[in-house]
C-alpha cells in the first residue's frame, strides 16, 4: 500500500511536505512540527495514488478550522503544481509570521500572497520573470480594490496612560450581572447537597455521622460581544474604545470584538494576548474601512448571517457602540437589529453622539435602533477610559 511513496527517491516527498507546511505556517495557519510528522505518517498510511487523496490527506492533518480551507486550497494548488514555482517560493520565503486565526477570507488571501509571492522591497525588480505565476496568484486576490482603503495610525500609549487604563478597568462594572451557570461548585450556603463531598467527609470521620456538604451554581459573566462603529463620525472615539476593548478582552474570557464601518471585521484575535500598541497597530492595518461611511443595516445583517450563531450561542450580551448615523439612511436596520436583539441575552447601546439633554432622535438610523435596545447609554466627554467606565458602571439607563 505504501508502494507509491517508495517510488519517490531519497525521501523528497517528506521534504516537500515540510516546505509546504512552512508555506502554510507563514500564511498564518497554526502548524507545528508535530503536524508535519503527522502529515508524513498519514501519507504513508493512506498510500497516495490519487491527487485528491493526497489533497484530503494533507487537509485532514493541516486544517483545523473551516476558515483555513480557502488558503489551504490555494496554497496546495500553487505549491504542488509547479516545481519551478516551488523553488522560487522557497527563495522568497521570509520568516515573517503574521497573526494566526480567523481573519476573513480576503485577509487570508492577502497573507498567502505575502507568503508565496514577493512582498518586499526587492520584489519589483524580479517582476518580469515572475509575471506568469503572479497573474495566477492574483486572479484569486481581487478583493474590493474599488473601496477607498484607509489605514489608521494610533499614537502609542504612554506608561501613565497604561496605568490609568488598568485602574479604570479594575473599577469597571459593566451593566451586566454574572449569571448562574449549570456548573456547580462547593458552597456552604448552597441549596443542593453535594453527595460526592458528603460521602467523602462522612467516611473521613469514620461513618459515625453523616456530614452534609452543599453546592451552588457557579456564577459567571455571560459572553460579551462588542460591535464597534469606526466610521468618520466616530473616529475621535475609536482610539479610546480600542484601548478599552483591548483591556476588557484580556481581563475576562469570552469577549469578542467586531468593528464595522462599511464592512464587518472580527478583530478578537488581534486584541488577545498582545501588547496594546502592537494590537492597535495590527488592527490599524488589518481593518480597511476606517473613518468612512457607515452601513449599519448591512453590517448588522452580515453579523446576523455569519457570526451570530457562532458568537451568541451561549447567551451573550451585545454591546453596540455607534452614533447611529447611517449612510444608507437607516435602510434595513429595523429588521436586523430586531433579529440581533432576539438572539442576544441583552442588547446595550452606547452612543457618544447623544450629549445634549435636548437631543431628539431624528436621524433614521437612531429611530430604527432605539425600539430594540434593552439599555441605552448616552456618553459624552468620551476622552478618557475613566469617563467610559463611569458611564458603563452607572445605573441602568442613566444619562451620564
Amino acid at each position, binding site marked *: *500500500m*505504501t508502494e507509491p511513496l517508495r517510488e519517490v527517491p531519497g525521501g523528497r516527498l517528506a521534504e516537500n511536505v515540510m516546505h509546504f507546511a512552512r508555506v502554510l505556517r507563514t500564511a498564518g495557519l*497554526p502548524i507545528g512540527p*508535530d503536524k508535519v510528522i*503527522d502529515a508524513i*505518517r*498519514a501519507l*504513508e*498510511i*493512506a*498510500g497516495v495514488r490519487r491527487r*485528491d*487523496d493526497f489533497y*484530503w*490527506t494533507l*487537509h*485532514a*492533518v493541516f*486544517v*483545523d*478550522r*473551516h476558515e483555513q*480551507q480557502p488558503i489551504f486550497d490555494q496554497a496546495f494548488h500553487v505549491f504542488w503544481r509547479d516545481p519551478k514555482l516551488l523553488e522560487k517560493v522557497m527563495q522568497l520565503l521570509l520568516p515573517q509570521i503574521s497573526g494566526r486565526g*480567523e481573519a476573513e477570507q480576503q485577509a487570508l488571501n492577502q497573507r498567502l500572497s505575502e507568503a508565496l509571492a514577493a512582498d518586499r522591497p526587492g520584489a519589483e525588480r524580479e517582476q518580469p520573470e515572475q509575471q506568469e505565476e503572479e497573474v495566477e496568484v492574483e486572479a484569486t486576490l481581487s478583493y474590493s480594490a474599488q473601496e477607498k482603503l484607509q489605514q489608521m495610525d494610533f499614537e502609542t500609549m504612554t506608561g501613565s496612560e497604561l496605568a490609568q487604563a488598568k485602574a479604570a478597568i479594575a473599577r469597571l462594572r459593566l451593566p451586566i450581572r454574572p449569571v448562574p*451557570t*449549570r*456548573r*456547580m461548585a462547593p458552597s456552604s450556603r448552597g441549596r443542593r447537597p453535594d*453527595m*460526592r463531598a*458528603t*460521602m467523602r467527609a*462522612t*467516611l473521613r470521620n*469514620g*461513618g*459515625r455521622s*453523616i456530614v452534609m456538604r452543599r453546592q451552588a451554581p457557579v456564577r459567571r459573566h455571560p459572553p460579551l460581544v462588542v460591535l464597534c462603529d469606526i466610521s468618520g463620525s466616530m473616529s475621535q472615539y475609536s482610539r479610546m474604545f480600542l484601548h478599552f476593548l483591548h483591556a476588557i478582552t484580556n481581563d475576562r*474570557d469570552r469577549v469578542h470584538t467586531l468593528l464595522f464601518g462599511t464592512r464587518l471585521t472580527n478583530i478578537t484575535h488581534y486584541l488577545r494576548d498582545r501588547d496594546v500598541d502592537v494590537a492597535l497597530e495590527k488592527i490599524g492595518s488589518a481593518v480597511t474601512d476606517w473613518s468612512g461611511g457607515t452601513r449599519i443595516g448591512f453590517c448588522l445583517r452580515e453579523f*446576523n*448571517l455569519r457570526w451570530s*450563531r*457562532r*458568537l451568541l*450561542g*451561549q447567551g451573550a450580551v451585545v454591546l453596540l457602540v455607534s452614533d447611529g448615523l447611517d449612510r444608507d439612511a437607516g435602510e434595513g436596520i429595523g*429588521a436586523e437589529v430586531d*433579529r440581533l436583539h432576539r438572539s442576544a441575552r441583552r442588547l446595550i447601546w452606547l452612543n457618544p453622539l447623544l450629549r445634549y439633554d435636548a437631543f431628539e432622535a431624528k436621524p433614521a438610523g437612531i429611530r430604527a435602533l432605539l425600539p430594540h435596545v434593552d439599555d441605552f447609554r448616552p456618553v459624552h466627554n468620551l476622552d478618557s477610559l475613566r469617563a467610559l467606565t463611569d458611564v458603563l458602571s452607572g445605573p441602568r439607563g442613566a444619562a451620564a
Partner: protein
Amino acid sequence: MNRDSSPPAGLPASIDATVDLLSAGDYVADRRLATALFLSLRMGRPLFLEGEAGVGKTEIAKVLSRALGRHLVRLQCYEGLDIASAVYEWNYQRQMIEIRLAEAAGSVDRERLSQDIFDERFLTRRPLLQALMPDAAGPPVLLIDELDRTDEPFEAYLLEVLSDFQITIPEVGTIAASEPPIVVITSNRTREIHDAVKRRCLYHWVDYPDAERELAILRLKAPEAADELTRQVVAFVQELRGMDLFKVPGIAETIDWTNALVQLDQLSLDPAVINDTLGVLLKYQDDIARLERGEINEVLRRINAEVAGGRHD
C-alpha cells in the same frame, strides 16, 4: 509506531475500502470524508467533525458502529456537563445503607469501610468510562456529540481523556483502556472549540452535499418518492442553498421534506404544495416569509428548466 502493519482486524485497509464500508452502511460519503475517517481509524486519532446542523455528522458515528459491529457509546453534551454525568457516579443511596449496615453490625473500621463503600458495585459508569471498558465486540465507537454546547472546563477535562484514554477515579485509581475507542466528536460551531482539543484530532468540515450526492442520498433514504419528485426536490434545495438565507436546509431537512411530500401523495412539486410544506424545510420565519412573497415561483421555474435540461443530456 508500527508503520507497515496491516490494519487492525475489521478496520478498512484503504480509502476505497472506507468508502465501501460507509456505503454498505447506507451512508453516501464523499471521498474527502472517507479519507479523513480512514486516517483517523488508522492513526488512532479522534475524528473532529464540524459543520452546520443537519449535514449528517452524528450519522457517521452511528453508521460506523453498525458497519464495524462495534457498540456505540454516545455522550450528548450540554452546558454544565460534569464528571457525574459524563464519566462516573457513585450510588450514594446504596452507600449510605452500607454505612448504616456496618454501623449496625458494630464494625467501625474506617479502612475497611471505605474499601467497601467505594467498591465497583456502587459505581455507575457514564459514557466516557463505558467507552474505556473492554468490550467483546472490540473497542466501541465513542460519539461526543455537539461538543460546542458544553463549557470550557469540560473541554479541558476531555483533553486528558483523549490524549491518554485513561480516567482517574480518586477512590479507585486510574482506569486505562486496553484498546482505545474510536472517537468521533461533532460540533455545530455555535462557538469555537479550543485549539488544544482540535490539535489532538483530525479535522473535517462536513459540507452540504452537491446535487449528485444529495440525489443518491435521497434515493436511499426516501425510496418511495417518485423519480421526478426526487430530482425536483434536490434542485430546489440546491437552489435554496445558493440564496442568502439565515439557515439553509441541511440534508436532514431535505429527507424530511421529501417524506412529507410522499405522505401528501405528490408526484412533482407545485407552488401550492411548496407553500404549505415550507416549514419542514426552513426554520426561520424570515426565510419562509421571503420565499412566500413570490420567490417560490421563480425558483420553481429555474429548477424545472434545469431538471428538464438534465434529462435531455
